[in-house]
């Protein structure tokens, strides 16, 4: 186990690292590029550098390496080894003592101010590392910066859910006895079979009334309201066209028959629900349930 706080104290105790000289003196071409990149059209930066550019002058360049005594580099290495492998800069506060002029050659020193953690963050568990840098022209301090980064262990991302487009969902078989129902859902009607002889309501439907024997089924259009009679929260295994977990509710419609459908909400037996229609494609529209406020 790496004692992060102890290592931080050791690095902080080293104080400032040796001054690191900027690659180039303050120069007009770099000022112009910077102004262009940031869209700053202020006309005053002729022979004078924008103060916010201060960090630019001492950047190490594309292939630059940190010096061995750089406290931020040392602390990053320790946190990497402790498993806090990711980094995000959180804030930097800069103080400028005066404008810098073309031709001045800067150097920078850095010390470790403090390391706090471990903290739980939205990104994952991590440590806040704060450094303090000072820019010098000769032995004159011209600017300072307090710089803070979060060095963190990326949170375990949930298993990527397989894409489950509705089109992959299992489709119903439709025959002469059931086509009225699916024709209904296409028209956003929840149809319940009603016997043309005795008026018996029946779901799932069938061709012959078990009460009177008639073979002339008709239907009524349900108000689409009912209560949850029972439900399941499905977790495993994966179901084509759906993302787990999801709820399937057995709903007792106000007309008296029961019907299954997916339910969008926190289910409870006795809860009032209403029907929702979701178009899968031109052929298929699925009925499902959502909560309905009691009236």
């Amino acid at each position, binding site marked *: 186990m790496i004692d992060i706080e102890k290592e931080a104290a050791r690095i902080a105790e080293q104080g400032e690292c040796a001054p690191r000289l900027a690659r180039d003196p303050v120069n007009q071409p770099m000022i112009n590029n910077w102004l262009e990149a940031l869209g700053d059209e202020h006309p005053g930066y002729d022979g004078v550098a924008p103060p916010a550019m201060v960090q630019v002058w001492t950047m190490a360049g594309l292939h630059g390496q940190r010096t061995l005594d750089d406290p931020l580099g040392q602390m990053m290495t320790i946190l990497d080894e402790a498993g806090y492998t990711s980094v995000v800069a959180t804030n930097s506060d800069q103080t400028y003592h005066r404008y810098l002029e073309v031709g001045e050659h800067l150097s920078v020193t850095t010390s470790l101010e403090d390391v706090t953690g471990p903290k739980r963050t939205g990104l994952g568990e991590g440590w806040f590392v704060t450094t303090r840098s000072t820019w010098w022209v000769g032995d004159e301090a011209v600017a300072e910066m307090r710089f803070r980064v979060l060095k963190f262990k990326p949170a375990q991302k949930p298993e990527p859910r397989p894409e489950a487009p509705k089109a992959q*969902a*299992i*489709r*119903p*078989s*439709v*025959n002469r*006895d*059931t086509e009225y129902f699916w024709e209904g859902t296409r028209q956003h009607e929840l149809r319940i079979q009603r016997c043309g002889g005795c008026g018996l309501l029946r*779901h*799932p439907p069938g061709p012959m009334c078990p009460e009177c024997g008639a073979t002339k089924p008709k239907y009524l259009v349900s108000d689409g309201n009912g209560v949850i*009679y*029972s*439900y*399941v*929260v*499905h*977790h*495993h*295994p*994966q*179901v*084509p*066209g*759906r993302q787990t*977990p*999801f709820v*399937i509710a*057995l709903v007792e419609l106000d007309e008296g*028959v*029961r*019907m*299954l*459908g*997916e339910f969008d909400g926190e289910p409870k*037996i006795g809860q009032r629900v209403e029907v929702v229609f979701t178009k899968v494609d031109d052929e298929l529209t*699925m009925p*499902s349930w959502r909560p309905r406020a009691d009236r």
Partner: protein
Amino acid sequence: MNAAIVGIGATDFSKDSGRSELQLAAEAVRAALEDAGLTPSDVDGLVSFTMDTNAEIAVARELGIPELTFFSRVHYGGGAACATVQQAAMAVETGAAEVVVCYRAFNERSGHRFGQVQTAAAANIDNSWSYPMGLGTPAAMVAMFAQRYMHEYGATSEDFGRIAVIDRKHAATNPHAWFHDRPITLDDHQSSRWIAEPLRLLDCCQESDGGVALVVTSAQRAKDLPNEPAHVKAATQGSSADQFTMTSYYRDDLTRLPEMGVVARGLWERSGITRSDVDVAVLYDHFTPFVLVQLEELGFCGRGEAKDFIRTGALELDGDLPLNPHGGQLGEAYLHGMNGIAEGVRQIRGTAVNQVANVGHVLVTAGTGVPTSGLVLGQA
């Protein structure tokens, strides 16, 4: 009935048999015939049930069974287990055949897994009211009943868990069981993940590779064979009003299994025994909640009282109604009830690994939530 189970055979129970389903069937049938002291040429009838890829004629070819005068396949998957024995016994009684072998064999874990969503099953018009709505696994279909049962009777997930604990306890001392030596506690059950709330992983039986076969012949012929016969005292099927396969959700009461009530009535009437004569109960346990409902349908306790009945310890090996001494399907293997019938035969013979003392009668049930069947086995 004038019929008896005179031979039992099984393959190993595994998660990856490494051989074809037909080979498993052939091995199980051959083992059962050897146990019965018979040869393939004695066989003239074969019975299996749906959701098995092994055709009767294919099994006959592998075994070298020369002629068949009776072959049938019973519907509704696991609900047919005891009905295979009923078919065989009826064939023997009517003279349609003399020696009938009932079999079941599959690679249900390494091959086609029954616990997954059976997309093809949605082609069935009945299933078009459930599968497209996302209700496509046996566990979820049973969970819908279980949720309502809990709501009406105050049963809890722990009450379901006690069945799993008993089965796994019995399996722990059965060397043939997949979960041999691996008992669980109620805490294990309670901390197992949700499959389909209110069902947890340990409420759901395993998926298995394997085969089981049973040899049925007449009581007279049984006298000439080496094993003590397990007489078929009664065998019956049951289906009830507004019956669906796994989704009979449209009846008034969702807390019952009326098709098992039909079976129970038939078994008591035809066997002439009463509930108190049952020495061992092999109850189909693909999902724990339906064991509770079966206890109620079979009349061992009142409606909603199974949770209290279980707590009395009645289902332990030394209780009033020892449950699944082989470990059930939760513990031994999921051979769609056929391994439970074989256990019933061993209990009658007195050769079970977890033998209950002085077994006169064994009750065996088949798959629940579907049209089902049941058996009473007894000594002569």
